[in-house]
């Protein structure tokens, strides 16, 4: 068994790393490295879940880590890279409303606001320090993802922003509580579908309508992901 204090420190390091990836995403202009940074971030999330598992010995967390690993660190980045190669967009250099530096300052501000908020709201639940930090970073990450969405021009970057938001929510959830597994799984699937759709849409924006429909329509071409997910949908009911 590893000492809890060490684990706490480990978690702290991981959380800082996650923040760092978010910062990188905010300032990076190279699309390919954006996607890979995202997959690193997801991987860090998997680590956080595993470390928490070591602390709590809750199998749920392990499953969750696995789910995240498969979906967020592998499937989605892979899919996005493919799309991105198709589109041949290398860089996203335009910044809206916020320049990279001011976006970073804004992120600091966000973290402060979120901390203040959570402190006031969750004060009565008396969470441990680490958990509280995790929750704060989770929510802040969500906001930073949103910040990425509106400060960048390319849809593909926007999707990365959205994914960062998701990661933030996931992080928040990890530290605060764990939902029933089935729900978690459904949520992940849900999010994957959304991401895929958004990616296809992003593809559509930059390609011809025929190509777009070919990619969108699972009945026209194989488009494997889509059709499999649709079948999943049928089972849900």
């Amino acid at each position, binding site marked *: 068994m590893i000492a809890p204090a060490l684990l706490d420190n480990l978690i702290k390091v991981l959380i800082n790393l996650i923040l760092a990836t978010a910062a990188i995403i905010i300032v990076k202009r190279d699309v390919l490295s954006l996607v890979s940074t995202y997959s690193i971030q997801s991987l860090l999330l998997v680590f956080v879940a595993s470390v928490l598992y070591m602390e709590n010995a809750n199998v749920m967390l392990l499953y969750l880590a696995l789910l995240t690993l498969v979906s967020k660190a592998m499937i989605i980045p892979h899919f996005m890279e493919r799309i991105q190669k198709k589109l041949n967009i290398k860089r996203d250099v335009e910044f809206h409303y916020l320049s990279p530096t001011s976006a970073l300052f804004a992120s600091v501000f966000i973290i402060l606001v979120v901390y203040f908020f959570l402190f006031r*709201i969750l004060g009565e*639940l008396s969470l441990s320090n680490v958990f509280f930090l995790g929750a704060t970073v989770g929510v802040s990450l969500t906001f930073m993802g949103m910040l990425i969405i509106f400060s960048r021009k390319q849809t593909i970057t926007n999707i990365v922003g959205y994914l960062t938001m*998701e990661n933030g929510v996931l992080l928040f959830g990890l530290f605060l509580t764990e939902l029933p597994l089935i729900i978690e799984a459904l949520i992940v699937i849900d999010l994957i579908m959304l991401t895929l759709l958004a990616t296809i849409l992003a593809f559509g*924006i930059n390609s011809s309508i025929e190509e777009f*429909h070919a990619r969108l329509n699972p009945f026209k071409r194989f488009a494997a992901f889509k059709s499999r997910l649709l079948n999943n949908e049928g089972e849900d*009911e």
Partner: protein
Amino acid sequence: MILSIYAIVGFVALLLILLCRSHRSMNALSTVHSLAYFTLALYTLLYVRLPSFYLQDRYFFIDHLGIYEALIAAVLFFFASVYSKGYVEGLINIGELDRGNLKLFYVAFNLLLISVTYSFFSNNLALFWIFAELTTVFSAVLIVTLNAKKNIGAALKYVFMASTSMLFSFIGLIFLFTLTEHALGAGTLNWDLLMLNAAQLSPTILLASFVFIFIGMAAKSGIVPFHAWLPTAYAKAPSAISAILSGSVSSVGVYGIIRAYAILHQTAAAGRISTLLIVFGLASIAVAAFSMLSQINLKKLIAFSSIENTGLMILGIGLGTPVALFWVLFHKLAHALTKAVLFFSGGIMHRQYGSMHAEEIKDALELQPLASWGLILGAAAIIGMPPFAIFVSKLFLLLQAAKLSPVLLFVVLALLLVAAGAFAMFLSRVFAQDGGNNNNKKIEKYIVPDGMTFSIVALIVIIFVLGIFFPQYLSDLLNNIVAELGIK
């Protein structure tokens, strides 16, 4: 039991659609599907003891509110599919829709029906959240099946705005779950349990979680300032889909707010929530009303009117009295049906003129009398003229608002006036336009298929009847809902 029948019907319908090839059969299947849902809902309402719960964790349940919403959705989908028969055929003929995409269209259509219905039957709020997200996905697919580049932009807007906000909702759910975990020992997101134990939960955190949930639901239902996707999406979607989007998909958001509000209503935080809802409702009405005024696109006009009406509903919920909620629920029904009339009529105009812009629509009364009168009567109904259903619900909502504050009443009335004026201005502008004498290319008259005529006429009759006849049964049902929601 009922729920599995629902699932089986949905699954079979989907399977058959996947198998069959012709447009006619796909459409027929969709119609049968929605009709079956309608029958099921009716059956449930009449013969099943409500609320009833399903699955061992009580993830699903059917209570009066759920079945009521499901009923509205089924009716809308039914009319939309009847309408689609001719409408989609027309889309294909003029090349706005590829025949190859037809299957995708119908699959998404039916999946949308299924996910909307199931979102109403979810007891677990996280499950509800999932279905709500799914409705976004399928609606977006429906929007982008058309062959227009602009539709992709619209869908992107929709997906991004709705789902980013929905993530905040999820944060809210996590709050809620944590809260119950701390207060009750075991975390739960089951609505019935939350209702039962609401009094023991901390109002502050409840409030915070409500606000987060509200953000997502607000984006889903198009409340200002999360509304920007709505006019574009409604305008770009095929008219049959716009009707559904307006009547039942964004209704999912309002539904979520009602559910969450019901929980909060049991606690000390109710007052603050009311303020929040009233502020957002008012902002929605105001922005929508003024946007309508300078609108030149028919469908956008109708879309903004949806925002305005949603705002009114939110405001009504915020008032927090049983009577107000009663009429909010009725308003939901009336608004959904009336909007369908408008969108369907607008669809005919779109077929006729290939555009929704005011200056393109000429000689409308001669060329398309049905659609024109549909628009006129629909507009009259939506701005709350008797003898249509919205008149009554608006009147009572305003009565309730007046109880709170006369100033509020005055502001709302003034804004409603602006909205009404916008409709009048737009319609009179449109119908006053004639082709002029110099139209060498005589516009060919678009022959309206029977299914479209039927939908419009039937809906007008329904809103008319609802406007002058209030069935005892409906009033019992609505009272039941209000009681179940614990609004006292």
